[in-house]
């Protein structure tokens, strides 16, 4: 081997490709939601009464509490990510499991509620219901993908910790911070119809 012959090269820490890749994905998804939220307000300003007559105003108490619960999952995610970076496998697993419980609980209730709302006021009523359900549904889809990520990560962590998995834990945590922020923005947009 030539290792011995190699002079040491100076190094500096930079973001990993995985982290940059997640940043790029987040930028792209953020643009996607920006376009949908832009649509929401465009349609709103084209319409005299918002929400249109015959469509109930969006409920706020339960959704706000639920989103608060979801946003709290950022804390165990972040702690899990740090634990993974420090090599504390058991701690990382527990933190991610706690996060998963919060996220899955939120998701289960929201899906149930989404179906209820659809039964009451179908999506094909008017432009308001179209954009309302599409925006909310897209947000739920992102939560669902995040849950899949965490399930997959826990599956991987069941077999120990590698640098690759540490990296994965970091980027999935980043994804969740983004999704939580996104959920707040989406909820705020939808609740703006109440004002």
């Amino acid at each position, binding site marked *: *081997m*030539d290792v011995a*012959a*190699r*002079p040491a*090269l*100076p*190094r*500096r*820490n*930079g*973001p*990993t*490709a995985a982290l*940059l*890749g997640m940043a*790029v*994905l987040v*930028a*792209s*998804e953020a*643009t*996607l939601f920006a*376009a*949908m939220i*832009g*649509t929401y307000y*465009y*349609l709103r300003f*084209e*319409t005299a009464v918002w929400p*249109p007559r015959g469509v109930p105003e969006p409920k706020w108490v339960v959704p706000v509490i639920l989103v608060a619960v979801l946003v709290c999952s950022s804390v165990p995610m972040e702690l899990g990510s740090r634990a993974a970076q420090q090599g504390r496998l058991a701690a990382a697993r527990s933190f991610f499991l706690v996060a998963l419980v919060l996220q899955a609980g939120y998701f289960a209730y929201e899906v149930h509620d989404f179906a209820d709302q659809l039964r009451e006021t179908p*999506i*094909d*009523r*008017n*432009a*308001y*219901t*179209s*954009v309302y359900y*599409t925006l909310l549904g897209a947000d739920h889809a992102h939560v669902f993908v995040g849950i*899949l990520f965490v399930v*997959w990560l826990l599956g*991987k962590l069941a077999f120990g910790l*590698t*640098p*690759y*998995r540490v*990296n994965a834990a970091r980027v999935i945590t980043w994804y969740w911070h983004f999704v939580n922020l996104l959920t707040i923005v989406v909820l705020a947009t939808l609740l703006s119809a109440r004002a």
Partner: protein
Amino acid sequence: MAVVAPPRPAAERREARLELAWRGRPGLLGWLTTTDHKRIGLLYFWTTLVFFGAGGVEALLMRTQLERPNNDVVSPSTYDQLFSMHGITMIFFFIIPMTTGAFGNYLLPLMIGARDMAFPRMNALSFWIFLASGIFIYISLFMGMAPDAGWFDYVPLASRAYSPGSNIDFYCLGIIFNGIASTLTAGQFIVTIFTSRAPGMSLNRMPLFCFAFLAASFGLLFALPVLTVDTVFLFLDRNIGTHFFDVAHGGSAVLWQHLFWFFGHPEVYILIVPAFGIATEIIPAFTQRRMQAFPLVAIAELLVVFIGFGVWAHHMFAVGMPTVTMVFFAAASAMVVIPSTIQVFAWCWTMVIGGGRFRTPLLFIVGFVFMFVTGGLTGIMFVAIPFDQQVTDTYFIVAHFHYIIFGAAVFPIFGGMYYWFPKVTGKLYFELPGQISFWTIFVGTNLLFFPMHIVGLLGMPRRQYTYPDGLGWGAYNLAETIGGFLTAAGIVLLLGNLLVSWFRGEEAGPDPWHGPTLEWSTGSPPPEYNFAVIPKVSSAYANWDHEDREEDRRRLEQGVLVLDEGNRQVAVTPVDGHLSEIVDMPHGSPWPILLALALSLVFTMLVIERYGAAAIMGVLCLLALVGWHSHEPAEETA
């Protein structure tokens, strides 16, 4: 091992180890599972050429139909599918994949001194998704159900009420499908540019080509999601009864246009900025001068895309927007001229002081400058709102954007084909047929597109499958048709020349042009590991820094940054280009093509409205992803 084999110089031994580590699988399986950016680049190249041929045939059919008044070579319905597919093909299946997919994939890692893209498997995935989306949308053409509401697909014409067939569903899904591939490619380039450059290549030492691709990638990243949202809305409107674009239920037909052009105008710059990048490689190579006003050109490349996001509504001046809105967008459209004029004069001045060798690649760049300036000057005219409203949706516009898209995007692509031909094949092309092909294409395109300005002013609207006699349009249309076939002949000559040269051309050697950037410092064709040693870089024209290249040879002897234990590459800090870590690269994987296959099943189920089956195919995609990530490349962060 050293005991058995005769002693060899350390450098050769290291190269042999690299060779072994990076060698792809032989045969077809090697191509299907490859993650080598050069092979993926070539796959993109051949595939996009096929689509270019299809788009070209569509164009020639249209020109044949319009050759005389009241002609009936094709039916109105066929004509509508032809012009829609021509636009979709040339934009989504030729220019974007040709520039980013083929040129970018093949050349970008070579120019920044990397051994592969940052995410090699994702790179393969982009290609297979792109190919699948192309097949998906072309199947519709052969079924006679191709998109037929134009590439910009305005509602309500594209809504279920006025387009009951599957045509527009193919459009929506095909565009979304293709958009996934382009988004992956864009993200790939951004991350690769920021992390995989050779140590020492700080951003200000990065070749202008890479700046152009960075700009185009950012453009794609922020423009495509908006198109995706737009087409998703349309798909939902058509298939589950939402009312985004339905005025009767509170929707808006103009909403489609806003979202479409928010994507569509940056798209124009996404098409031409990579071509600018090609020009900024060819000009220095043939004038042997660095690009003049380098920092301004780099900034201009980024700025043109950035400002391009603020001008979309100038496509909609006839929609009936408030005058204040129109004037704002006209002013923004005026601003976007400046980064272009900066570049035009920088290119011209470099050629003037360089006193270049006018070989075929540079001829294409000269043609490009001429066409781009012509198209740009008519583009400036659209700042004048009343004039824009007079000529919008006429052949004047068709002339303008073909000068831009054919002249400014495709000419550099042709120039680039000639320029990098020796690098990719190791052979020289034949010069005389090359120059003839240039003049044929140059004369052909001008004959094809210039009269369109005139018929546009004479009142001929776009997108009509025929036109009456007696309005003075016939002779110009005939000239355009002749120009179209002349252009096609030139392109056939170009491709024929390259094909013959591939087998019969002289050996090119590693650096026939004395090129400015790193791809010319390695073999032709480059070895699978690209560089035996990660190159030392101290300027944007690294191949002209002879001392650095000497240093590379010394490093290879000493084993510095050779990284020959497996498939390794360096990662650097994003801005300064300091060495940050050594990373293990994945090498060869069956999962990208399997995932793309599963994804195409999802889209197929969606288009035939089997949503349950689509969900099952979605689960297949997830399984493919799990399989993909079951292999973990080790990452050495020490």
